[in-house]
């Protein structure tokens, strides 16, 4: 029997997100994916879904209703049962910036260009390509997977330095600016969204007008605007851009950075390609052990 998740109340921007839609950048479509992939994995695996199944990504409080069947619900990995027709409340995220609500079987919104996540700028994916609002009803997939408890460990440690690989445009910055990147403490700006996380702190001057020609971009790249403000590109970043890139956050630390709420300190530490790959391998073992 078909199941539904009804949106009854929304306290902050909420979208459907999943593992993203890799391989579409050549259409100008960013990779998407969860703002904090570790929490998506925890939420999904706890109700037996593949780690990257479609779930709710919310920055605030939610009021939801299960309908059509009994459901298992997971909030960042904490699970409970919801009876057919039962209304339940998901409190706003307590420590991280965001939280994930997964339902057994996943959210069965249509797959578009290889993913089910919402891309707001293109009004693509998720539920009608937009933010969710009360009255929306999301279809559920077939559940029945084997649940698994993943451990966060120190993955989202708010005091841990964020690992970056320097460059590729390092030569456009002076020695003092390069030193600032690794020596200074930045804080997460409230003017951050899935397109990019803005950081407050020392201006990373480069005097580069932006050659005007667009260059390839990637999630985690730290682009520096003309005013010297660093922006760490998020999952919905423009696929090309003109600002110089002083460094790039490694895959393993995307979630560790994005989990930080506005005002949280951020320090950077440089690692080698080898260090980055080793960190990613350990990350995969921890968060994608079975899928």
């Amino acid at each position, binding site marked *: 029997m078909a199941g539904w998740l009804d949106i009854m109340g929304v306290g902050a921007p909420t979208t459907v997100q999943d593992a993203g839609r890799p391989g579409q950048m050549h259409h100008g479509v960013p990779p998407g994916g969860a703002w904090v992939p570790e929490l998506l994995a925890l939420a999904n695996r706890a109700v037996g879904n593949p780690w990257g199944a479609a779930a709710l990504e919310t920055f605030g409080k939610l009021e939801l209703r299960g309908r059509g069947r009994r459901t298992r619900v997971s909030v960042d990995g904490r699970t409970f049962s919801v009876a057919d027709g039962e209304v339940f409340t998901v409190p706003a995220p307590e420590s991280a910036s965001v939280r994930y609500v997964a339902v057994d079987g996943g959210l069965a919104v249509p797959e578009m260009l290889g993913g089910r996540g919402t891309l707001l700028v293109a009004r693509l994916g998720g539920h009608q390509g937009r933010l969710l609002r009360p009255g929306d009803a999301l279809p559920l997939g077939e559940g029945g997977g084997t649940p698994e408890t993943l451990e966060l460990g120190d993955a989202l440690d708010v005091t841990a330095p964020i690992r970056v690989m320097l460059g590729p445009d390092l030569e456009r910055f002076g020695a003092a600016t390069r030193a600032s990147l690794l020596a200074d403490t930045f804080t997460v700006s409230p003017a951050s969204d899935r397109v990019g996380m803005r950081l407050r702190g020392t201006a990373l001057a480069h005097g580069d007008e932006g050659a005007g020609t667009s260059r390839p971009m990637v999630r985690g790249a730290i682009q520096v605007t003309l005013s010297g403000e660093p922006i760490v590109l998020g999952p919905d970043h423009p696929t090309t851009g003109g600002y110089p890139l002083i460094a790039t956050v490694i*895959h393993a630390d995307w979630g560790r950075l994005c989990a930080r709420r506005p005002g949280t300190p951020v320090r950077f530490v440089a690692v080698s390609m080898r260090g980055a790959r080793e960190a990613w391998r350990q990350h995969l073992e921890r968060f994608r052990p079975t899928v």
Partner: protein
Amino acid sequence: MTECLLNIDLGELPGEDEQLYTLAHVANIACGGHAGDDASMRRALESCARHGTRAGAHPSYEDREGFGRKALEVSPEVMRGQVAGQCARLARLAASQGVPVRYAKPHGALYHSANASAELARAVVEGVVEALGRSITVIGPGTGALRDAARAAGLAYAREGFADRGTRPDGSLIPRGQPGAVLTDVARARENTVRLATGGTVDTLCVHGDTPGAVELAREVRATLDALALRAEALGDGALRLALPEGLERRSAREALCALPRVVDAVITEEHACVYFDPDAPPEEPRLALARLLHVPPPPDARPPATLRVRYDGPDLEAVAARTGLTKDEVTKLHAAREYTVRCVGFLPGFAYLGEVDSRIVVPRLATPRTRVPALAVGIAGGRTGVYPFASPGGWHLIGTALDFTAFTPEQGAVLRLGDRVRFERVD
């Protein structure tokens, strides 16, 4: 990585293929020892001048019958004189033709015997210096007496590997005459080239002009070296940004990169190609995928140009006219007068960067980008124009609005693809 150069022994045989000069970075020109005479040297130097090939001297034991392949009993002092004489003969002709001689490489048996004898090596180097001066790069084996002698004399030295010669497991060459000594298979030569050029032990690779299929081999080696010389920069742990050579057909380049195992996506921008992958499974040398395209003309474009209807009503039309000293009408006419090509797709889903804009209406980006540009606005900035597929922030000057145009659909993605041709039709 410094560029690894292709050197080819030339001016040795009648009926030599001129194409070899276009493929070689350095031509080692036979200067009378084992082969070559004034006429062949002149022809070789002319070919160097015509194709921008760097000229080098290729002195040898004086043994034209044996093609310099056999070591002779020659005293170091006599050897010095013979090398100087051969090099000077080339230098004289080169000077009269205005071609600088910048390299010297001993030929055949002399190459090996000089490398095994400090005395003979010194004699060869002294002969080279006497005829050609000290701003010469000596080409020779990776290690040995020749390198030591060149360095002792203060000359630059290029360590040589052989793209068309088989090697034993220990890395030494399989002697000529034995099976597998000379590679004629293009794929093997390519593997050899990658191994040698990326191994850090050679500065130049040789293809012998007299190897069967030399032109085909040299073309493969040169394309491989050109690809490996492209700048590649890590964009974090899951992407590699490659300098895209101007003139490379952009759509083919993207398709070639995308087809590589473990490459998840490939994006072409103005000056770069970028490949994306899982950091746990990086692709092998993606630049080699571009090698194939470097010396091959692109396939003709079969798709007819797309025509986009535009109402020239943009809020910046007045400013563009003022900035360019034209009337608004002239600006719109110039914008609609030419056919554009899709140079890149990116920024937003379905956004196509179209070029080249007529130089008379080129304007920079806005000093302060708009926080919201309406969907289907037509913008210009620098030498590019494009249609915003969605409402978004944007920094281009807006000159019009595209009518009945869909830039992106969830089913097919971007409607305009790399290399597509586009025209704008003015609608009043």
